[in-house]
C-alpha cells in the first residue's frame, strides 16, 4: 500500500505530492529494530552475557560447570597477582609479541615491495608468501613439530647440515631456542597477511607522484625513500596495531608445538587460562586471569591509539 492510493482526483497534484513525501520519510524510519534484532540476540547471548557472567565467576570459587561456587570477592584477583605462573606466562606473551611483531611487519613490507616493483609473475609471490596463511594452525603446528623441528633428522637441522653447519639443535626442546623457533614458524605462517595489506597500499599510491619525481631527476633510491616509504606510514601504523593485538592472543601454535614447554618457558597467558579452567577445573580463577589479560589488551590498545593520534598530528 502506498500513500498515493488515497488520492482520488488528478486535479490536485500538490496534495498528491505531500503525502507521498511523508510516506517516503516514514519508510526510512520504520522496521529499524527488526533488522538489528537477530544480531543483537546472538550478540547479547554469546558476547555480552559471557562478558558479564565472567565478572561474576571471577569473584567466585566456581568449578568448571559454573555452579556450586561461593562469592569470594577479589580473592581470585589477589591470588592471580601473587601467582608467579601468571607473571611468567604474561611475560612470555609480551616477549613473543615483541619478538614476532618486528620481523612480521618488516618482512611483510619487504616482500610487498619486491612483489610490487617486479610486476611479473605476481601469482608466484602471492602463492608462496600468502598461501601458508591459509593453513589451519593445527596443520602448521604439526608440520613444524613433526618434520621441520625435530633434532638431527628434522628438515631445519638437515638443511643446516647441508651447509656444513652443526646440526643437533633442540629447536623446540631447548629453552634457549624454543620461543625463537615458534616465532620463526609464526613468521613463515602469517606474514602473508601483512604482505597483502602492504601490497594493497603500494598499489594505491598515485602513479603521478613517481612520474613527477622522475622528471625532477629523482633516482630509484630517492623515490623509495621520499615517496614510497612515507606513503606507507599509515599502513604501517595499521599493520603494527593488528599484529600486536594478534600476537598477544597467541595460543594454538605454542600449545601444539611445545605444550608451553620446555619448563613453561613458552607458555602464553591464554594457555594458563586454559590450564586453570579446563584441566584444573577452577573456572572462577581462570576468569580472573582472563580479565587481567583483557586489561593488558585494553591498555595496549589505548597506548597505540594515543601514539597513532600523536603521529597523525605530527605528519600534518
Amino acid at each position, binding site marked *: 500500500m502506498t500513500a498515493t492510493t488515497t488520492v482520488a482526483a488528478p486535479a490536485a497534484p500538490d496534495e498528491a505530492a505531500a503525502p507521498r513525501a511523508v510516506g517516503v520519510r516514514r519508510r526510512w524510519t520504520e*522496521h529499524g529494530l527488526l*533488522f538489528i534484532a537477530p544480531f543483537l540476540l546472538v550478540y547479547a547471548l554469546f*558476547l555480552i552475557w559471557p562478558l558479564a557472567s565472567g565478572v561474576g565467576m571471577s569473584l567466585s570459587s566456581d568449578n568448571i560447570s559454573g555452579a556450586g561456587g561461593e562469592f569470594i570477592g577479589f580473592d581470585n584477583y589477589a591470588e592471580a597477582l601473587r601467582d608467579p605462573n601468571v607473571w611468567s606466562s604474561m611475560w612470555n606473551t609480551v616477549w613473543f609479541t615483541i619478538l614476532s611483531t618486528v620481523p612480521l611487519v618488516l618482512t611483510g613490507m619487504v616482500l610487498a615491495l619486491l612483489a610490487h616493483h617486479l610486476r611479473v609473475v605476481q601469482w608466484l*609471490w602471492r602463492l608462496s608468501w600468502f598461501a601458508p596463511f*591459509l593453513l589451519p594452525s*593445527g596443520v602448521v603446528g*604439526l608440520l613444524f613439530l*613433526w618434520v621441520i623441528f625435530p633434532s638431527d633428522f628434522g628438515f631445519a637441522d638437515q638443511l643446516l647440515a647441508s651447509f656444513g653447519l652443526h646440526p643437533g639443535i633442540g629447536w623446540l626442546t631447548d629453552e634457549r631456542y624454543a620461543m625463537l623457533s615458534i616465532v620463526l614458524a609464526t613468521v*613463515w605462517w602469517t606474514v602473508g597477511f601483512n604482505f597483502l595489506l602492504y601490497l594493497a597500499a603500494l598499489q594505491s599510491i598515485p602513479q603521478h607522484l613517481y612520474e613527477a619525481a622522475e622528471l625532477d631527476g629523482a633516482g630509484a633510491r630517492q623515490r623509495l625513500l621520499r615517496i614510497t616509504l612515507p606513503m606507507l606510514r599509515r599502513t604501517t601504523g595499521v599493520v603494527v596495531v593488528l599484529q600486536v593485538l594478534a600476537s598477544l592472543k597467541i595460543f594454538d601454535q605454542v600449545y601444539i608445538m611445545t605444550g608451553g614447554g620446555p619448563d613453561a618457558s613458552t607458555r602464553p597467558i591464554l594457555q594458563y587460562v586454559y590450564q586453570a579452567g579446563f584441566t584444573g577445573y577452577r573456572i572462577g580463577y581462570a576468569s580472573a586471569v582472563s580479565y587481567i589479560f583483557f586489561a593488558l589488551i585494553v591498555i595496549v590498545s589505548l597506548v597505540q591509539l594515543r601514539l597513532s593520534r600523536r603521529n597523525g598530528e605530527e605528519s600534518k
Partner: protein
Amino acid sequence: MLVAAAVLAVAWLLPLAWAFATSLKPEGETTRTPLEWIGSKITFDAYRQVWAAGDLGRWLFNTAYISVMTTLLTVTLCAMAAYGFARTDFRGRKVLYGIVLAGIMVPPQVLIAPLFAEMLQLGLVDTYWGVILPQVAVPAMVFILVKFFEGVPRELEEAAFVDGAGRWRVFWTIVMPLSRPVLAAVAIFTFISTWNNFLWPFLVTTDPNGMTLPVGLVNVQTSYGLRYAQMMASVVIAGLPLLIVFVLFQRQIVRGVAHTGLAGQ
C-alpha cells in the same frame, strides 16, 4: 632483484614441499639423514592408510558444514544489522550502535571460561551450534558493512519506496546485490577464519566424531606414534582444501583481506 625474490619465494615453499615429500616416502625412510627429498620409491600408502582409518572424512565434513553455516549466518546477521544501523532511525539506535562498536575491543579469547560454562548450561557442548553460534555476531563486520551501506546512494532506495516496495524488499533486491563485493570480502574472511579456528572448537568438542579437522588431527597426533609419512599425509589433506579455494578465488581473497584488514581500523 628478480633472483632474490624468486629465491625467497622458493624458500617460502620449502616447508610445504618437505611435508609433501615426506608423505610420499615409505614409512621406514622418513627420518633418514642426510637430506633426501625422494625415498627409494614414491608411494601413496600413507594417504591410503590415513583415509582408511576413517576419521579424516568425518572431520572434513564437520569443518565444511560449520564453516558454511557460520559464513551464511555471519553475513546475514551482520548485513541486516548494519543496514538497520546505517539506514533506519528509531529510538536508541545510537546507543545500540555504540554498544556494538565497543564489542570490537573484546577479543573472543578472553571469554572462553564463561562461554564454556554457558554452553554447558545450554547443553550445546559437542554440538555444531556450540561451535557456530559464538562466532557469528561479529561487531567488526557490522562496522565494515555500515561504512559501505552509508555510501550507497539513497535515491536508489527512495525510488523503490515510491514504487511501493517495503523495507525488506528494498534490502534484499537493491542493497544486497549492490553490496556484492563487500559481502564477498566479509564472507571469504569469515570462511577462512572459521575453517582455521582452533581454540574454540578445541574447547567445545570432546567427542572425536564432532571435531573439526585441525582439532581432530591435533587430538590424534600421538596415536600416529612415529609414523611421519601418515602424519604428513593428514597434514596435506587438511591443508589442501583452502589452498585449492585460494587458487580458484585468488583475486577475491586478495582484495577481501586488504579490504577487511584495513577497514577493520
